């Protein structure tokens, strides 16, 4: 009797089991929220492109502003409606160039030293030091540029040659700022080169230097190139060092000893006060911001493409 009931029950159960997926509304809602979070970053990019694009467009619609004049003339004087981007661009290039002249050779040397020469003990002490350098806020570097590097330059080259604000000291300190970035990216790609390659090179009689420079560095070249490009993009977008130390006022010059405002420095100075909406200054910082965004975006995309395209893959 009991057996029969049991059998009946199981039969009944089996007949109601559905092979369809049970709808789980909680899971669906959560999945929707997660999808929204994932999609949120797209909104940020769209927001940047839309807002900056819109205001930059309005900027070029303003009377007296003209795209052709902006990219061909060499005077940026908002109060008399002169918007030639070159003075801002040359000082941005100056600081970037000086920074990279410091950061590329030093950064690569440090990376090669850490990955090829240093003993594990030395490496374990030096890497945290580099991380500390990388974690210091840029305003502190700005303070360092103004109160240490500038007096030092004025001491070396003469007070009448070097102005209080100059692109040279900003560029040098920016080089120190970017050094840990280049070092850590380069070091990562150097240590990704397999041991066997080095051992083969030692086997045919290479010295340590030859192995490092002729075998390991070429094998890691895509990573090193990416590091350099990311460094350049970081230098172009760097703001506080130039805002503090490079000078306030656009200046079309190629001398590293005189003050000249960079793109980022100009944005900071203009927006320092209470900026009124829809004024020409307000719109101009969006145009400059869009320009910065496009340059750094292009550089970042190039660096990612280099890594993808030229990466040497070893098993």
């Amino acid at each position, binding site marked *: 009797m009991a057996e029969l009931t049991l059998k009946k029950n199981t039969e009944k159960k089996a007949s109601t089991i559905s092979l369809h997926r049970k709808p789980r509304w*909680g899971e669906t809602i959560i999945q929707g929220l*997660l999808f929204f*979070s*994932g999609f949120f970053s*797209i909104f940020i990019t769209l927001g940047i492109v839309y807002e900056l694009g819109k205001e930059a467009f309005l900027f070029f619609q303003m009377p007296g502003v003209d795209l052709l004049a902006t990219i061909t003339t060499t005077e940026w004087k908002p109060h008399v409606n002169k918007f030639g981007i070159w003075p801002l661009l040359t000082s941005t290039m100056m600081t970037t160039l000086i920074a990279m002249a410091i950061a590329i050779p030093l950064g690569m040397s440090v990376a090669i030293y850490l990955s090829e020469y240093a003993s594990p003990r030395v490496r374990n002490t030096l890497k945290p030091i580099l991380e500390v350098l990388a974690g210091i806020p840029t305003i502190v570097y700005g303070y360092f540029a103004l109160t240490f590097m500038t007096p030092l330059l004025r001491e070396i080259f003469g007070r009448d040659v070097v102005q209080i604000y100059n692109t040279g000291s900003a560029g040098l300190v920016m080089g120190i700022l970017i050094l840990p970035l280049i070092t850590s990216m380069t070091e990562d790609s150097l240590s990704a080169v397999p041991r066997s390659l080095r051992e083969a090179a030692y086997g045919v009689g290479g010295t340590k230097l030859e192995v490092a420079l002729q075998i390991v560095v070429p094998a890691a070249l895509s990573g090193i190139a990416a590091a350099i490009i990311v460094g350049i993009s970081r230098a172009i977008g760097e703001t506080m060092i130039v805002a503090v130390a490079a000078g306030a006022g656009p200046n079309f010059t190629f001398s590293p000893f005189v003050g000249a405002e960079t793109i*980022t420095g100009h944005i900071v100075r203009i927006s320092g006060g209470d900026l009124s909406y829809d004024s020409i200054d307000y719109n101009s910082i969006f145009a400059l911001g869009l320009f910065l965004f496009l340059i750094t975006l292009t550089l970042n995309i190039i660096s*990612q493409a280099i890594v993808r395209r030229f990466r040497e893959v070893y098993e």
Partner: protein
Amino acid sequence: MKEKAIVQGFANNLDGRNRKGAVWHVLFQASTIVGIIALIALLFNVIDSAFGYVAYEARVDPDTLSVDGTPVEDQSKEQLVALVQSTLSSGAYNKLENEKSFALRSREEVYQLIVERIIRPKVVQVWKLWPSLTQADEIRATVTQDYPGAELDFVSWLTTDFVTRPQTSEPLTAGVRTAILGSLWTILFTILLAFPIGVGAAIYLEEYASENWFSRIIQTNINNLAGVPSIVYGILGLAIFVRALEAFTSGKIFGIVNLTSANGRTVLSAGLTLGLLVLPIIIINAQEAIRAVPRSLRNASYGVGATKWQTVWSHVLPTALPGILTGTILAISRAIGETAPLIVVGASTAISFDPSSPFSKFTTLPIQIYQWTSRPQDEFRSLAAASILVLLVLLLSLNASAVLLRNRFSRRF
């Protein structure tokens, strides 16, 4: 024969090659040392300015304040209160009385008040730490010669008072409490925005998204956003949070009419802007932490019948949590040090009252450093150096807690 010549040539060259190797070795080592020297110079430069001799003159000679031959520093509290009452205007006195009743103030507090409001010392010259230690006698001689009325004191610009006092325009009594509170308020909203969305996005990309063009676009986009200059986020924040969402960020839609909220240039706008800035960093770090959770853990969970979300919530997230938190702390320390976007969003230049709501005007520690650094007088540079030390200590303790967290809770599979 030919073979021997090659070996010969190889051996002949060996000394030269070794020498070249040694030279480059030294060069590589020297570069590393240059990097370390840069760090030491930076720290030394900050510490050098944060301590040292200060010569200051009183705007009101304390001798004129003595009563019956008792100098002002020895007077009783009642005498000091009477002095405050008789010297300051009744409006100023009542304001002080409203802030904190004189009956409740200690004698020390009243004396401090007299120094700040009546004697008002004025800095005439500042020396750095190194000359203060090595040329103390010359400094004393200079002061007695150039500023006969001035007093010379060895001052540590970084004191507990410096951390707890609000900002003022007087260098000797200025502090960074306003700025520290501003930083903390700002960071609160940064975390509220960036942490849930960042972790959510990481979970979506690692656990839910299938390998297709769409998730590749999101991934590439996140990587690119991480490389966008911070000032561009500032401009975005200005356009969206300060201008377009002004009713929200100034608290108008909540019916809060706050006269001090400057048209959306508020703590809330600043925090949300920094939230957008650190979001890609949090996502990338959280993704790495989630990716480190082994497949077998998930499969075991599915095997006992858990749903996808149950698996993620009860197994993947707890295992990845130390990594996620470490990454978040690092992102937050980046946000705390950011200056440029906040200037664009509209940090206030000089506010002495503490932020009290999301809709308050704000200043933060890096902004304060920027303002003091841009002033030409040495005493403000010293204040900037002292606030840099506060900022570095804050960041260092955050980073140390991140490292501890990683070492304490990280599990290897």
